[in-house]
């Protein structure tokens, strides 16, 4: 049973001088799960990932990865992890395949093992045709896929992905998500940080929402939406100076209303009905949109702020 707990943190803390980046979090990740840390920039996600990756000493609390203590067995843990950092960290002077070769050697893989894995990883990362090319001119999406391929060179049991699609265009993001699904299907445990709610919803079986170094909610994306939001949301836009006048009317017909600088969000079980009742009250927004609740709404409800500012 405990063998299936790949990551266990209790009261995990990271401080830099007076600043507490991670403030006593409790987390458990099971083998085969895709687990997410969702939160805005500066929430403490990357600091958590660095501690889990055994490249940043724990300031307080307890952390066990694969049943081992990073302070004592950092190298043995890292031998079984794959790390895809926020910045690609590739050697751009080397070719695509050379980046994989040299990295495999760091794990003590023989030249033969590395070469055997290289073909397969290049295929996985859809970079076979670029294998002899230098890394520097590759696109952002290609570099990111190469970084992931490199992180897989030691056939890790856990893959840590810190903001895997930040800075990529929508198409490159979807290609990457597809690759990550495949890994998940093959049984690789994924631990992902992201400030994109759609990414968390797409990839994560279970996630924690972090804010200011603390965990403010935990569950599957569906559970979080059910618990902290309503089924639907009506987005209402008004002329800039009129929005405030309509807040009360919206409150009367919705369960909850959030005021954003450019729009009102009315939370409700049935968006169309809420919109109809607003019309009855003579409220005429410039535009309105009924949509399903997302993790963005969960975050807004929990913290009063949006994820991406």
């Amino acid at each position, binding site marked *: 049973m405990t063998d299936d707990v790949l990551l266990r943190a209790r009261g995990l803390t990271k401080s830099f001088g007076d600043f507490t980046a991670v403030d006593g979090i409790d987390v458990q990740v099971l083998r085969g799960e895709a687990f997410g840390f969702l939160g805005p920039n500066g929430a403490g996600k990357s600091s958590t990932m660095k501690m889990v990756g055994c490249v940043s000493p724990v300031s307080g609390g307890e952390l066990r990865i694969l049943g081992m203590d990073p302070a004592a067995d950092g190298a043995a843990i890292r*031998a079984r992890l794959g790390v895809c950092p926020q910045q690609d960290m590739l050697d751009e002077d080397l070719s695509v395949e050379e980046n994989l070769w*040299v990295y495999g050697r*760091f794990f003590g893989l023989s030249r033969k093992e590395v070469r055997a894995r290289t073909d397969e990883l290049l295929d996985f990362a859809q970079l076979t045709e670029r294998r002899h090319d230098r890394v520097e001119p590759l696109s952002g999406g290609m570099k990111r896929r190469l970084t992931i391929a490199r992180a897989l060179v030691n056939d890790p049991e856990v893959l840590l992905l810190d903001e895997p699609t930040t800075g990529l265009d929508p198409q490159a993001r979807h290609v990457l998500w597809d690759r990550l699904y495949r890994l998940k299907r093959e049984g690789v445990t994924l631990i992902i940080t992201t400030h994109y709610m759609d990414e968390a919803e797409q990839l994560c079986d279970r996630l924690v929402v972090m804010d200011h170094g603390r965990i403010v909610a935990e569950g599957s994306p569906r559970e979080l939406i059910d618990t902290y939001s309503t089924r639907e949301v009506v987005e209402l836009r008004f002329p800039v100076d009129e929005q405030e006048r309509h807040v009360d009317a919206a409150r009367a017909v919705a369960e909850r209303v959030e005021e954003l600088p450019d729009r009102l969000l009315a939370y409700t079980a049935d968006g169309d009905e809420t919109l109809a009742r607003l019309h009855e009250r003579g409220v005429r927004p410039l535009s309105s949109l009924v949509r399903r609740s997302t993790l963005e709404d969960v975050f807004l409800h929990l913290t009063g702020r949006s994820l991406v500012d």
Partner: protein
Amino acid sequence: MSAPTVPGPAVADAPSGRLGPGPRRPTSRGERLGAVMAHHLYVYRRTWKGSVIGRFVSPLFFLLSMGLGLGALVDARAGGVEGLPYLRYVVPGIVAMQAMMLAFGDSTYAVMGYIKWNRMYSAMLSTPLRVGEVLWGHLLVVALQLGVATAIFLLVAAPFGAFGSWWVLLAVPVAVLTGMAFSVPTFALAAWLENDNGFSILFRFVMTPLMLFSGTFFPVDQLPGWMQPLAWVTPLWHGVELSRDASEGVWPGWAGVGHLGVLVLYVGVGAVLAHRSFTRRLLS
């Protein structure tokens, strides 16, 4: 979006060559150092053509200008320096000086690049490698380059009659040690600096004066008395003296032990500082 499921490893479509879960074969320190060196040698393999040409041409320039051009003048007017034709006086000094220049060149922007530009050091530390292995794997490749460059220099200069003895072969390890006495502390500095502005200060106010005032081109006792101690406490003068003794086959005695001691001290203290500044910068 599905309910949380925990799929077991799907053996059927698992890619070949998989290592599977569980502890991995532990690696030895030598293996890990070798892996770091292999990385740097791969990088070097991409750039060696330019650097080898540079390493043939720059000693040739020095030989022609200092050894032969200036040398003819010095020999005619002063009858050489310290009983030697100027060519034989100056070339072993330039060998040591070149080691210093290469050491600075390989230990500044390259190190900062691995720390903050492509962040390869951080990528390395995400593997079973330890910080000392990341540091020394890189340093050993610098040492190797110093050895190769010095050997090339000797090959180019020997036909001009620049050396008085076969003992000059010892100038290779001397030059490597001299270069490392600069390289190791510079690694520490590069990991400590926030940006590369400090390097131009290093080149202008450390490297250039050392080139000129370390007994490379003329004996330090020609300097004003207050400047001589500066030569004694910095590594280059010690390297130059050892290099000159080697190239003439002169046994330096206790002075040689002193020279070696100073160079080793620079490497040793530099190593402690570099390890500390790498740890602080990369594993905080």
